[in-house]
Every structure is written in structure tokens, then in C-alpha cells.
């Protein structure tokens, strides 16, 4: 019997750094992020807007545009570093072994190409299929993600589909080559609530079917609870806590994670008072000293303001970057 820790991870990210050169200085959007994902698992990356979640996953596929730049780290996928391999090698992996679903289905589909063109493109590029064969496969994929009468609609343009339908089409396109790693960047944020649940169910179902790895970005802890195996919490470009999903909810050790969970509990249970996290998210700009969360943290000490905390093990698979590591029972930020 193999121990979980000995399983070879599909993707191993070490000390990833992405900077944006802007007028006011250097923005450390991703500042030394490390994580790995194991076969058949679902990792959720959680955090506020601007915490660096999206930039992290975009950096992995080198989809960052100027003025952004990946400046350091490694992202080893099956023994090859995604960050240093040739463009051709990377293009062969994109859409084939690693696929991505984006946040806004309304702008993610090309309005000038039929949905069949877009769903079948990966098969043509990576599987060497002919146009007709790929179109037939696209019909199957569209049926699989729940597009009604796919045979008739495969030659339609995106404009004739609703937001939820378009996200289904995006999922069909992303899964066309049965990728080992699927990255979903807030796939339900732009959709209405009933649609969100359907899309999540679809993702879960397909993930179980292909048995691939799903990395999902979200700021919705409800989504995390329903889908995640592991959770990684980001704040201001850094990972502040990482743990299996049960532990994150049962015993969060970082004040920021505790704050996030407290706000959600308050929303679920009207009798509890709402505890918003005071202050606004820190902007990771210029030289940084101490813990980025310290200005908003009720437990902050002088050490927090001077020394940057590093990730430490607090359980078998639970790491946290905090000098104080307050007990979860005292949850009050």
C-alpha cells in the first residue's frame, strides 16, 4: 500500500514568482507560491480578488501578458518544467494534457467561429483528426455536457447561446482531449445561482469520469466544501494556508482563513453576527516586510509586522504561514 505522500504529483510548482511592472513600481502578483497536485484530486485555490489566484494558474501555462512577467520558480509537469520548455512543446501541452476553463463564458468564445469549430479545434491540433471526424466528436462532447440537439446546433455561432450554455460549450472544448489536468478559473462566477450548481455538478461528474486532476479557483467557500479535496488559501500573492478540505473548515489556523470561514458561517446562520474582515486587501507593491495580513489582523504582534512568516507544518498535510497560529476556537478576527 502506497502512502499518499509517496504518490508522484502530476504537477509540482515551486517558488513561482510573477511580477507586473507598473508605473507605481513592481507588483508582486505571485510571490513565491508552491504547491503540488496529485492524481485524481481536486485542489481549490481560494482568496479575495487580487490575491493572485488567477495570475498563478495563468503563469503555469505562460499566458501572462505584458506588463506581467514570470520571473522565477519551476512548474514541473511529468518531469518537464512548463516555465522553461520551448514554445512548441508548451503549445503541444496546452489544450491537450492541460486545459483551462475561464471565468467569463460570454467573452471566452470566439464570436466569429461556430461552436463546433471551437470544440473540435483541440482534436484537430492535438489528435491530428480531420475536420469531419472532429466535428462528429464535437457533437458527442456537446451532448455529454448537456447541449440539447447538438447535431443541429454544432454549426451555430456563440451568440445564439445563453451564458450557462456557453460555459458548457467551453467545458466541452476544454475536455475534448481528455486532459490530465483541468484548470478552472472561477467557472461559475459569471453565472446565476441555479446555473452555478448545474455547472459544478457537471464538472464533478466529468472529473470523476476522466479521472483527471482539477484545479479550481474560486472565492466561494460553498463551492470549496462541495468539490475540493485540498484547499489552498492565497492572500496578497502568497499562500497563507494549505490543508485537506475537512481540516480547513474544522481547524483553520490562519486568521485570514478563520475570517473567511466566519463570514460564510454567519451568512448560513442568520442568528450569528456577521464578522467581516476589517480593512481592504493588501496590494503587493514594492518592497515588502512582515506579514501582508498584519494590518487587518486582530492577533498581529511586532514580529508579524517585521518578519515575513513562512509556511510551517501544523498537521500531517496542513501548512500555515503565520507567527501566531491562533487556535480555531478563538475564531474572532
Amino acid at each position, binding site marked *: 500500500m502506497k502512502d499518499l505522500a509517496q504518490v508522484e504529483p502530476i504537477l509540482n510548482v515551486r517558488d513561482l514568482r510573477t511580477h507586473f511592472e507598473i508605473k507605481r513600481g513592481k507588483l508582486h502578483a505571485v510571490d513565491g507560491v508552491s504547491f503540488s497536485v496529485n492524481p485524481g484530486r481536486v485542489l481549490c485555490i481560494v482568496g479575495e480578488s487580487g490575491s493572485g489566484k488567477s495570475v498563478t494558474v495563468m503563469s503555469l501555462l505562460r*499566458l501572462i501578458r505584458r506588463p506581467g512577467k514570470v520571473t522565477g520558480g519551476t512548474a514541473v509537469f511529468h518531469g518537464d518544467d512548463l516555465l522553461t520548455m520551448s514554445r512548441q512543446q508548451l503549445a503541444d501541452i496546452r489544450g491537450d494534457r492541460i486545459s*483551462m476553463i475561464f471565468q467569463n463564458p460570454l*467573452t471566452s468564445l*470566439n464570436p*466569429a467561429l461556430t461552436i463546433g469549430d471551437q470544440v473540435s*479545434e*483541440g482534436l484537430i491540433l492535438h489528435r491530428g483528426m480531420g475536420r469531419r471526424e472532429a466535428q462528429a466528436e464535437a457533437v458527442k462532447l456537446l451532448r455529454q455536457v448537456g447541449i440539447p440537439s447538438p447535431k443541429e446546433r454544432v454549426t451555430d*455561432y456563440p451568440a445564439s447561446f445563453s451564458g450557462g450554455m456557453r460555459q458548457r460549450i467551453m467545458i466541452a*472544448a*476544454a475536455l475534448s482531449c481528455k486532459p490530465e489536468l483541468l484548470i478552472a478559473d472561477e467557472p461559475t462566477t459569471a453565472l446565476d445561482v441555479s446555473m452555478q450548481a448545474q455547472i459544478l455538478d457537471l464538472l464533478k461528474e466529468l472529473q470523476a469520469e476522466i479521472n483527471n486532476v482539477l484545479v479550481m479557483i474560486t472565492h466561494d467557500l460553498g463551492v470549496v466544501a462541495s468539490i475540493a479535496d485540498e484547499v489552498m488559501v492565497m492572500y496578497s500573492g502568497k499562500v497563507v494556508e494549505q490543508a485537506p478540505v475537512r481540516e480547513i473548515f474544522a481547524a483553520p489556523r490562519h486568521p485570514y482563513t478563520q475570517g473567511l470561514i466566519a463570514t460564510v458561517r454567519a451568512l448560513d446562520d442568520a442568528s450569528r453576527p456577521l464578522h467581516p474582515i476589517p480593512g481592504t486587501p493588501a496590494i503587493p507593491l514594492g518592497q515588502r516586510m512582515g506579514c501582508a495580513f498584519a494590518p487587518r489582523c486582530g492577533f498581529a504582534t511586532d514580529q508579524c509586522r517585521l518578519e515575513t512568516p513562512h509556511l510551517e507544518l501544523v498537521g500531517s498535510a496542513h501548512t500555515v504561514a503565520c507567527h501566531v497560529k491562533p487556535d480555531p476556537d478563538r475564531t474572532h478576527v
Partner: protein
Amino acid sequence: MIVHAILGRTARVAFVLFGVSVIVFGLLQFAPGDVATALLGPQASDSAKELLREQLGLNKPIVTQYFLWLGNTLQGDFGVSIISRNTVLGEVVPRFLNSVLLASAALVIAIILGVTVGIASAARAGGFFDRTSSASVQVFGAMPPFWLGLVLVYFFALQFRWFPATGMTKTFGGGDAWDIANHLVLPAVTAAAASAAVIVRMVRAVFLEVLGSDYILVARARGVRSWRLLMHHALPNCMPHVLNIIGLQLGYLIGGTLFTEVVFAWPGIGQLLYKAILGRDVAVVQACVLFIALSFVLINLAVDLINDFLARKMRQS
């Protein structure tokens, strides 16, 4: 639906053409001097002039005159040239066809040059090629055709002797396709330069905008690269804008062609118009202006209809 759109556009075009006809008719009214005197010469007797006025209907009220003129024009009767004594239509049509040849050649050059350089610049924005092309665009875009024409003639006709300097055919024994093509090169390049420069700039801007959109990022994430990304994913979304730009440029191109014809002695409508103005040949001026305006309006109608068609194709299920 499509028939409806065509009718709508055409109705607007008819309205524009009505305005054009009023202005062209007005040319005759505002032209300095008396038409009868211009036609018969200063020595003509008053009674002869009066008789001519009566024949031409110049004594009738102006609105009646307009409709008489319009009626004749619609039947293809533009009157007689006072310089050549030919019918105006017989003067204008062959010249107009020569101009169409020159303008088409210039258009082809401007589109090929403008679109390819524009796309190449956008593909590597900020790179060496982009910076070089931007600088050239500034230089060529700022050159008026009559000056650029002289420069080209100096180098390519007088110094290198690659192409003839003026005219459309050799004086003796010319007139075959190869001869005309040879004469066409310098004027076509001259007329195309300014438009090509503008097309480069606009196509570059349109492409940059489209390349910044989400679906291009999605395509890249799917493993789509370089050529396919530009041609298959970006170009169809740029097409309506590019067509629009080209449509707008046609107006400048026609204007540039008129200047170019004078510089290169190309026997087109621009040269005819220039001579007619100098000779106060009002009927010919009217016909030239009408032909130019008509082609401008019809070209724009065609561009609009193509754009409607493309947009409809994208939107419809």
C-alpha cells in the same frame, strides 16, 4: 431581412445622390459668367444669345431648369463639351474607365501592403518590424501624391529607367496589356501610398484590440499558435473593421488618383476634370463630379452591405 437592409441602405443612398445632383446643378448656376456668352463667344449678338438661352431653357424658373437637367442626365444626356464639341458622355466614359483601372490598381496595392504590414506589426507589437513600419508609415502617410509622384519619377523613370514617366501607352506601337501595366506601376504606387499608410495604422490598431480579447487567450490556452491564431481566430473578427477602413480609404484613394493623373498625364477623369475647369467647360465638370460622387457613394454602399452580411452571419443562429 436582407432585402429589407438593402432597401434601407439604398434609400439613404438615393437621398445622398439627390443632394449631389442639387450641388452639381448648382455648379452651373454659380459658375462665373454667362453660359450663352461662354458658348457663343464674346462677339455673339444679343439676339443670338437670347435664342440660345431660349433653346437651352435658361429663361425658365430655376426649379424647372433643375428638373429638365435632371431628366436629361438620367437619360444619359449630359450635353456637349464646349472644348471638344463632343457629347460629354463620350468624353467622360473612356476617361472614367481609365481612372477605374488606375484606382483599382492603387486599391489592390494599398490593401495588400496595408493589411499585411498592419497584421505583421500587430503580431509582434513593439518589436523591430513594428517600429520600422511605424516610422515608414509616418513618412509615406505624410507625403502628398503630387510630390511623391515627382520623387518616384525622378528615381525610377529618369535615373534607373525602369518605368515610363508619363502617359498610359507608348506613343508609337503601344497599347497592349504589358505596355499599359508598365505605365501603370508608378502612378498606382503614388496613388496608393497615403492610403496604404493609413490602412497599416488602422489594421494594426484593430488587430491589437482583437488580440487582447478573452477568446484569443482561450485559443492560446487550447494550444493554438502564431499563424492560425492570427488568421483563423483574429482575422474574422477584424474583417468588418478592416472593410470599413478600406471603404473609407476609397474616398481618399479617388482623390489621390485625381492628383496622380495630373502628375503622370494619365488620361483619366481627374485629368479631364482639371482641363475642363481650366477651360470653363461646365457641362464636363458637372459630369465628372457626378461620376466621381456616384462611384464614391456606390462603393460605400457595397462596403456597408458586405459588413451587414458579415455581422448578420456572426449573429444569426
